[in-house]
């Protein structure tokens, strides 16, 4: 039952992420992306990682995508005023895409099909256990990540200030 649910949701993820690329209207693209993120949330729940699921839900669906949508609505892009792309740009795009595909296929071929990882503690994804892991053995990497995020935030604020600081 778990596997069939996984395949169903995985198919949905793939379909919706393809729709992100294929839809003409950027706002529709973002909306498909939101649905794709929702299917990711379902994946996390299937993996019994409730905390990650709900954080994915809040941060990606509830905050980041709202900002994406906000910017796209402000720009009001549609077919009439879309800048025409030259043939050169299209060719470059195709070549870059092909390179990415080759790299991805190569990496996937290089990795052997791994044995399914069996967690020592199946409830690792619950808040209490995850917190103990993060603030215990993984304290240093976790704090470093937060400092990285903080510096990115300070940088973004500095960039928006027009006058010399």
């Amino acid at each position, binding site marked *: 039952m778990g596997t069939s649910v996984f395949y169903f949701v995985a198919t949905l993820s793939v379909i919706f992420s393809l729709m992100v690329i294929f839809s003409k209207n950027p706002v529709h693209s973002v909306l498909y992306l*939101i649905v794709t993120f929702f299917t990711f949330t379902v994946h996390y729940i299937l993996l019994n990682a409730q905390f990650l699921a709900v954080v994915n839900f809040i941060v990606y669906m509830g*905050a980041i995508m709202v900002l994406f949508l906000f910017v796209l609505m402000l720009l009001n892009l549609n077919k009439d005023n879309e800048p025409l792309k030259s043939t050169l740009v299209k060719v470059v795009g195709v070549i870059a895409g092909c390179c990415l595909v080759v790299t991805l296929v190569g990496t996937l071929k290089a990795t052997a099909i791994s044995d399914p990882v069996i967690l020592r503690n199946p409830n690792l994804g619950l808040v209490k256990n995850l917190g103990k892991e993060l603030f215990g053995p993984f304290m240093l990497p976790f704090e470093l990540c937060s400092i990285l995020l903080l510096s990115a935030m300070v940088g973004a604020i500095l960039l928006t200030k027009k006058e010399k600081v």
Partner: protein
Amino acid sequence: MDIAFVIEKFVLVAIIFGISLVIAMYSTYAERKVAAFLQDRLGPDRAGPFGILQPLADGVKMFMKEEIVPSNASKWLFMVGPGLAMLTACIGTAVIPWGSPIAIGDRIIPLQVADINVGLLYIFGVVSLGVYGVMIGGWASNNKYSLLSAIRAASQNISYEIAMGLSIIALLLVTGTMSLKEIVDGQHGWRWNVLYQPLGFLLFMICSFAETNRAPFDLPECETELIGGYHTEYSSMKLGFYLFAEYINMFVSAAVMATLYFGGYNYPGMDWVLANTGPVIGPLIGTGVFFIKIFAFIFFFMWVRWTIPRFRYDQLMHLGWKVLIPLAIANIVVTGVVIAVIEGF
């Protein structure tokens, strides 16, 4: 998973859904009556005794109106918008504990649809999704006022979510759990969280007002500047859905505030009552108390709406970013220090 479990949950979901719709319906009536009282008028009094049938009359009117889809609107999204607003308003009730478990025979029925261990974050996630209904509807209408309103709603929602999240963190420090059931059980009798987190409650309540787009934060539907805001182009039941979703949101956030800060179904002297009234009536009295708290909050929402004028947009942003967020951070620090001192580091 036995069949009785499924039936039990199904019945519970149906009851909660029904109750939220009825309460939302009668909130429209209550709102008009409260407004009338505050402005020294009578309010609706024609349909039925004291105008008690007014919500039904309004509902029928909504259904009978002509359904209009603007010719330049994005058709699908125009229809998805109100549905999404309604959906996000309704799913928040799933994790709220409505009462202590009822025992019928040897079967114990919890009055909560789902006790997940991230219940508080679930509520927060649902709240942050709530803005999509407004944004999609406002954009799909292809009307500049609607678009402006959608953009206002998005920025307001994002800004106040931060302060709300920070005030929740301070609450988590006190309760030590994210399961709403355990949070409520931790407030047995008189030990309500509002006594330990008065500032946190104030911040949370202000943010709830902003997240539900209620006055004085109803800038997305500010009629003096934006005609009707995001629902300018809507008619018939689609408009009805938007208006209805606002009242359901109000009900849900009143329930969340009562759960988190005012003890949920706990009240002083509940042990005596539970011991003397039996395993069914006792918990139901608790549920009744919980609903009294919810109604008090709903009344407060209305009282504020008809008392305080709307903010200007820059005042809204100023309050959100420069007042509420620093206060919330200070609240976390103070709470953390006090807990550390009490528990002896």
